[in-house]
């Protein structure tokens, strides 16, 4: 017999960025909110304090701050007819767990979106004709415009204390920023972070190539800051334990630093950690959610009734919960019907490493997760796609989140993996190399999707989520094009050696290599309920008291990191709930 808790106005599944934003906005509106987080409670003094957090074995081998795959994971396969096998060890992507979620161990790259990337399908069709979009590619416009999202992009940056340089304010160009960005209403909350050598060299090389480089917007504070909620941040000291780690310095924006200090004091808000949600419960007619069922810290099954259910788990697990709970129709790639699981996409990431002699002090151990340099000359409408030969775009950047020898030292081409020559190789590379990366867009396809695995189960007896995903020719061409440009850029700096790894024809998706945690799509927002699981307010088309904010809503992924967009979409959805849904609960869009 399940324990039944008293009904609340809203239950939130997951306490990462989207959960914290929703909890803040809904308690602001006077709702009583319970948040259920599958992992432990986490905070700076208890979990991320110095020096204990500066431990590579704990952070990057035992992966203390990431999701353990022992209880829940996904299975993966490259094609429809293959048998999927489990993602048994962390590799390609790193979901978080615990209070703060992946928002504790992210890097801090905090982009908005290029206005034209929200209308990607229309943009490609208008510029190159329908024939330019390959068969089987299922890209779509976001059902929301940049102008609608601008206040929410702005607010999320204010909450995060994002450091950067505006390129366009109210239509006017500002020197030093990105001239191709969507117009902002004001400057960043903080000025750009300082340049380590790799970023300085990137700017120099980009100028030489005629690119318009700008500082990566970084939610790693460049100065002391107090956000609109009164939460305080300290200046980033470039500690070098950023990606994979919680910030000991209150410098990297996170739900824990930027929102939870306010939430934790609110009577209307209750946070239950170690609460593993098993499913969303629906009424008999399957038209409304009645709440959720979860396992509490003692392993007891508990039912939490609620009027509103917000799925704020990591994107993949949002889709998993929808499929397990019968919210929306599962996507079938053969019949091309259903929506939940449709349009799964990822990120097209590749790296080039530049090696120098001992006179060049690159000091990769000095690190800041989000800070660096990039340009948009090969992204959005700046890219001549017909000439480049692929749909989408991407950025090239210098980033340096902090290197440590346990995390691995990239050695110059030809250096073996062990023995004296390896020692010589790591000694030469460690302080005297830096890298540039290309972060390319990843389109969505009819055959890249998510569903439930027929064989493997999680520790709670539920089928695992199954990911069917592989690289398509469009992304391979994108990788070759962008890596080619990155190599050209790198050569202007005369490194003594250079390694690059563009994808090769026919190359398959490799789950063992980290390529970003930007798993997107699977429960996408759209204008048509036949091809999208969510409407423009991230509300389920099928069960209107369920909202699903997250990168799962992206119909395809662009060349930027998703967090800025995820935060903005969450505030956008929260506004719709506050101003429209609460007044008249029901579908906000009638198809």
């Amino acid at each position, binding site marked *: 017999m399940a324990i039944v808790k008293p009904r609340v106005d809203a239950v939130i599944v997951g306490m990462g960025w989207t959960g914290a934003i929703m909890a803040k906005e809904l308690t602001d509106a006077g709702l009583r909110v319970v948040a259920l987080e599958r992992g432990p409670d986490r905070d700076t003094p208890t979990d991320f304090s110095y020096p204990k957090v*500066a431990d590579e074995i704990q952070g990057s081998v*035992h992966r203390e701050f990431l999701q353990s795959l022992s209880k829940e994971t996904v299975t993966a396969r490259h094609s429809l007819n293959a048998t999927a*096998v489990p993602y048994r060890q962390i590799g390609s992507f790193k979901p978080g767990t615990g209070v703060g979620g992946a928002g504790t161990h992210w890097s801090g790259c905090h982009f908005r979106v290029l206005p034209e990337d929200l209308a990607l399908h229309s943009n490609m069709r208008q510029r190159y004709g329908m024939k330019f979009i390959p068969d089987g590619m299922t890209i779509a416009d976001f059902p929301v415009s940049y102008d609608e999202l601008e206040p929410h992009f702005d607010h999320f940056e204010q909450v995060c204390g994002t450091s950067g340089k505006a390129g366009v304010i109210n239509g006017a160009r500002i020197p030093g920023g990105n001239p191709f960005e969507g117009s902002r209403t004001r400057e960043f909350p903080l000025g750009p972070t300082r340049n*380590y050598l790799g970023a300085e060299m990137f700017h120099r090389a980009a100028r030489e190539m005629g690119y318009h480089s700008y500082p990566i917007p970084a939610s790693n504070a460049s100065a002391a800051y107090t956000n609109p909620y009164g939460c305080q941040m300290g200046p980033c000291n*470039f500690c070098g334990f950023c990606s994979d780690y919680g910030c000991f310095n209150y410098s990297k924006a996170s739900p824990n630093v930027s929102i939870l200090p306010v939430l934790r004091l609110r009577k209307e808000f209750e946070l239950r950690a170690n609460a593993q949600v098993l499913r969303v419960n629906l009424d008999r007619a399957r038209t409304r959610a009645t709440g959720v069922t979860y396992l509490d810290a003692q392993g007891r099954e508990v039912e939490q009734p609620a009027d509103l259910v917000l799925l704020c788990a990591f994107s993949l697990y949002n889709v998993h919960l929808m499929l397990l709970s019968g919210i929306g129709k599962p996507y079938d790639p053969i019949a091309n019907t259903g929506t939940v699981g449709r349009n799964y996409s990822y990120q097209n990431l590749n790296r080039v490493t530049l090696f120098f002699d001992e006179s060049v002090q690159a000091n990769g151990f000095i690190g800041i997760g989000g800070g660096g340099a990039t340009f948009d000359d090969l992204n959005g409408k700046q890219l001549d796609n017909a000439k480049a030969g692929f749909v989408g775009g991407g950025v090239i950047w210098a980033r340096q989140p902090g290197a440590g020898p*346990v995390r691995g030292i990239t050695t110059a081409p030809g250096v073996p993996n*062990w023995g004296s020559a390896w020692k010589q190789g790591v000694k030469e590379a460690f302080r005297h190399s830096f890298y540039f990366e290309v972060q390319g867009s990843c389109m969505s396809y009819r055959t890249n999707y998510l569903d439930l695995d027929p064989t493997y189960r999680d520790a709670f007896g539920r089928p695992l989520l199954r990911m069917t995903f592989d690289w398509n020719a469009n992304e391979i061409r994108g990788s070759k094009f962008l890596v080619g440009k990155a190599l050209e850029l790198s050569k202007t700096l005369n490194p003594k050696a250079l390694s690059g790894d563009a994808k090769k024809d026919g190359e398959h998706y490799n789950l063992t290599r980290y390529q970003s945690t930007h798993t997107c799509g699977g429960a996408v927002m759209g204008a048509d309920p036949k091809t999208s699981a969510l409407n423009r307010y991230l509300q389920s088309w099928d069960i209107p008291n369920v909202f699903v904010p997250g990168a799962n809503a992206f119909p395809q992924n662009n060349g930027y990191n998703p967090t800025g967009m995820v935060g903005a979409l969450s505030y956008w959805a929260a506004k719709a709930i506050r101003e429209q849904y609460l007044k008249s609960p029901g579908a906000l869009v009638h198809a």
Partner: protein
Amino acid sequence: MKDSDSADSPLRRQVFKALTFVPLSAIGLAACSNEETAGPTRPGVPPKEYQPAFFNATEWKFLHAACDRLIPQDDIGPGALQAGVPEFIDRHMQTPYASGDIWYMQGPFIEAAPQFGYQGRLAVKDILRAGIGAMDAHCRRNYGGKAFAELEAVQQDPLLKAAEAGQLALEEISAKEFFSQLLAETRMGYFCDPKYGGNKDMLAWKMIGFPGARADYADWVEVRAQPYPLPPVDLAGKRG
């Protein structure tokens, strides 16, 4: 009347006070050590050699021999043995990590392309144990009954290279998977914080110039001309 026996006697209070203020860690240390093996603080007495708790004597010899080939001592810097890598690995094999606590370990176990990662049923500690046994068995069959540790370096290196390339057929375990885990553990032990038993005296950090747990470089972000000047510091606050 015997005041000194009463619970409130000044003597008793002094004894209790003294006991109360002895840190628990010191009591623990005193209980664990004895006069003969008091450790490196006593001049002229060599530090007590680490005794493995996970590996048996044969495995321990293999581990020393293999680590010594993977990261040899040379003019470039310290070797794996000098840095305490076998001790790290022995201790690491006793952690939940080595038993697979962050891996998905449920079957069925199906062979898959290498892009899907290790799909076997063994955790790290079992991979190492099975791999060491299989490598030694292979050596005994092919080198006149000699174990890996008894071979010359010129015989050991090709065996390691063959394992790395997946060109060594072993019973029970994929040589490539075994080698990959062995190399990963060896590198970890070489470069870890000394609290884990490897990287003794921060020797490997000093070789490459890693400042360890300093984690504060605000004053050095824009310095270009000089090498970073400070030696490493470890999690215990010790300077290298």
